[in-house]
């Protein structure tokens, strides 16, 4: 069963990352990159690494969103 779950989660990670990168709107791209971090949290839990999962959850969605949003506020819109 764990092989099937791993396969599905990897496909989800890759699809979310591709959509996040080819997204023309910058706020949507930032939100979707946070989604990549959350899917990576699921993978770390499946790999029996709860410490790494907690770290990635706190940093990838707490401080990381702040840093990207501050960059968006200062660096302006695309085109």
């Amino acid at each position, binding site marked *: 069963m764990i*092989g099937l779950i791993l396969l599905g989660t990897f496909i989800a990670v890759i699809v979310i990352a591709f959509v996040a990168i080819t997204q023309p709107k*910058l706020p949507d791209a930032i939100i979707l990159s946070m989604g990549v971090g959350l899917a990576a949290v699921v993978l770390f839990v499946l790999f029996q690494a*709860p410490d790494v999962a907690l770290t990635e959850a706190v940093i990838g969605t707490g401080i990381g969103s702040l840093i990207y949003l501050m960059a968006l506020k200062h660096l302006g819109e695309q085109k």
Partner: protein
Amino acid sequence: MIEGILEYLNQTEVIKTIVILGSMGLFFVGLFGLLSQRHIIKVFISIGIMEIAVFILFIGLSFQKGLTAPMLGDAHTSFVQMNDPIPHAMILTAIVIGMAVLALGISFAIEYYKLTGKNRLDQMNEMKH
């Protein structure tokens, strides 16, 4: 049929192959973004995705089916049949350091934007002439 597929996917070699090919695919998605996008925030997002791909590869190669997390709990009272704790410790510090270095890079980009008003990579051509 379905049981056959599940049995095939549960083998150790197949799980390791899924980990290696999946994280490699995620790394190439990040590399594609780094090469194709021009806005500076998209470049930083691509670098973050490549970082996450490396973390997943590192943790996933140390994972073995049937072993538990390296931690004593209610059901486990001795340090046997556990996963390798060394990659977990290394990746745990690498995530924190990676986010701090990313913030440093973004602060450089903000100061550059305040000085020159450029936020796209194809406009940054001061070194050319």
